């Protein structure tokens, strides 16, 4: 399914494709998006880059509504993408929603990032 100007939402995978307390990587061009699933089946999408040194957040341990980066154990809030204090910095977050057991990603937001030169 292609996104349109009218409807930017695209179904990317089933909730069941993501392990509970885990993540899957959705790749769009050179942009990796980590899609997380909590114990309560809440879904969040962040750019797969830790604000610290660019570690792949998708590979971290998910706990509560946070993920611990696999590189240096920064904790990132899944709903904001921001590091838990006193660490500072945020990973880009993307709007997602769940309908009929499927995960929908807002591709208008994805495209905006994908066309930007080199992620911040």
């Amino acid at each position, binding site marked *: 399914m292609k996104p349109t100007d009218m409807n930017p939402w695209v179904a990317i995978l089933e909730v069941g494709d993501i392990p509970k307390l885990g993540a899957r990587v959705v790749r769009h061009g050179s942009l990796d998006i980590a899609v997380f699933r909590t114990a309560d089946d809440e879904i969040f999408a962040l750019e797969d880059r830790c604000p610290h040194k660019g570690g792949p957040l998708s590979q971290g*341990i998910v706990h509560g509504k946070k993920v611990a980066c696999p590189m240096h154990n920064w904790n990132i809030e899944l709903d904001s993408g921001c590091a838990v204090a006193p660490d500072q910095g945020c990973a880009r977050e993307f709007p997602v929603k769940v309908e009929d057991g499927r995960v929908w990603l807002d591709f208008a937001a994805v495209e905006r990032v994908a066309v930007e030169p080199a992620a911040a």
Partner: protein
Amino acid sequence: MDMSTPMGHGPKMKLVMVGNGMAGVRTLEELLKLAPDLYDITVFGAEPHPNYNRILLSPVLAGEQTVDDIVLNPLDWYSDNHITLHLGKTVVKIDRSARAVEAADGTRAEYDRLLLATGSNPFILPVPGADLDGVISFRDIADVDAMVRASSQYRHAVVIGGGLLGLEAANGLMKRGMDVTVVHIAPWLMERQLDEPAARLLQKSLEEKGMKFLLQKQTAELVKGESGRVCAIQFKDGDSAPADLVVMAVGIRPNTELAEASGLHCNRGIVVNDTMQTFDPRIYSIGECAAHRGIAYGLVAPLFEQAKVCANHLAHYGIGRYQGSITSTKLKVTGIDLFSAGDFIGGEGTEAILYSDPIGGVYKKLVIKDNKLVGGVMYGDTVDGAWYFSLLRDGKNIDELRDHLMFGQDHCGNLGHQGINKAASMTDDMEVCGCNGVCKGDIVKAIRDKGLFTLEDVRKHTKASSSCGSCTGLVEQILAVTAGGDYSATPKTKSVCGCTDHTHEEVRAAIKQNKLLTIPQVMNFMEWRTPNGCASCRPALNYYLIATWPGEAEDDPQSRFINERAHANIQRDGTYSVIPRMWGGNTTPSELRRIADVVDKYSIPAVHVTGGQRIDLLGIKKEDLPKVWADLDMPSGHAYGKALRTVKTCVGSEWCRFGTQNSTQMGIDLEKTFFKMWAPHKVKLAVSGCPRNCAEVAIKDVGIIGVDSGWEIYVAGNGGIKTEVAQFLVKVKTPDEVIEFSGAFLQLYREEARYLDRTVHYVARVGLDYVKKKILDDADNRRALYERLLFALSVERDPWLERAREGKLKHEFETVAA
């Protein structure tokens, strides 16, 4: 009593704090972090200043810092947080029935919760003349101002009290140009922190700076001069000394006047429970005024721990108890290194190790009881203070360390900071933490800018000392110099993490006794505070479950660190490395050809020979891993896991002209037996065929040396952050015995060590004698341990095989294209 609390609607609750010092304000800071909107907060402070760092009054007096430097919370902080601040107003009454406090000027404030943080008062000797002009104490900014003024007009200063505070005051006055005499009642200085030899060294170096001492002198009277100001001090033995300024530093008393007057139970402090509540549950108390389990603390770290607990309960979180602290002391007189902790005098049932170099000005004494460090005092060289303190606090068995205990932690081979062990001699651009690249300047800046006081704070903000921990002593020294922080800490029974108060041992016991089989079961049974733990406890629990109930508890990949979930090592660029297993370090032409073909086929950018005699393929994309494993067709090397890594061997009697045993085959047999073994941390073995020891067994978890008459088994070596030489366990005759004894040792470690403890940490904790008792003295137990290990290994499968050939957990290695 109605304890109901409006939350989320209606007017906010009212919190009033009496006292505006470090412990109280820290409580407010913690509370605002947890529940910023729960309370309308009002603060009464008797002094006209906002919260400042009282510990640093000594450097201010000495002219090394200014009052502005030591302000912790400027007035803006109070207004930014909507705190009503009454400065210069002393609260004189608590009306508990009306729930209101009243200040001397009539200012009144009602409360739903009251926090008493009134601190302490200096003790004034009840001698004639104690109320004269020119007689002061050393407690607040006003006292410092008075001393600074006096130093510009007068010559003779007398400090009564040769304790920590008195000496710091005397040092400051001396630096301000006064002629200072310290009067002390005891036979030596700082008798509560130092033994006589250390105190004599201290006295000598202070005398060299120009300070004078009158010991074993009791004050009879302070004599009034013509101007009405004090002019001399008269002693009970008839002597006297000139004195234009007298500073009384003979101790402090918890300030309980207000609490007592309002009927709160006090006993050498306002009596509080583990949640910092007084006998009136609406009223909390923390800081120097509070008596917890009979102790009123005066050092910053315990007070901040109290603050954390108190804030948590004020915020209605209801988590956490304060359980008391062990404290230690460091004198803040520039150029003097002094440290003491615990029972440093010793006595019946204790032994002491002494080091004394009077010419070099170094003295150290360590007091030991039942193979544990119970106290110590150090003068002149205190770099190992933090290390000794942690041994003391953790109650570690020091039997094995005894021989080199006195020579400090460096003696155990610390790497990573250029051999430097004195923070003071470092420049700002020198690196302190080699793991995280943190320089001294970064740490000093963070301590100043962010108002840090404890090692934990510094670790969180700068990452220094948060990885391998070998620079902890340096960081603590920097902290002590910069912020006046101290080494105090709550005795550690080491809870698993912040999600629970339970220790590793308690968790393991519960898993075993109640047959808990899943992580949610453990968390539920042990009342975890968080819904599904954190990145610290989940891997630990996962290991404890599969180690306790092999074949029954199911492994949870989501609770494993990425390396163990992907069965490869993540690299800094997000690619992975693959190290196939080569039994005992032996390989074949066909394995080498397959490896070369895989490197070509997947364009693997780097190939490296490891220290464990294996070949490391670096820079592999995650999605290629299962294919790489399939093409390699070699077993998993577990180089990514808290598991059996490698068994390193020499070529032994098969080839070497010195070899006495077939060490290669021994290594292969050990590796094949223990293959797939998960453990609390990585496990490395080695086998050498003769005492020349080419396989470097002395730094392995289990090291075997073949000798003509059999095999020697060494355990608990480590070649990492701290080089630890393995200890001799036993000599056996046959290869079968080598495997059984080694296996029994490893199983004991697997069953009893805390997650992330290496064998060296485990053996240091329980002692080698204990290990010998379990493995050497009790043959039945040894065999049972070994059998349990074999059973646990029998249910494990090769993870590469499962993923490469059987498609297990395919999703782990697939990305979704969009």
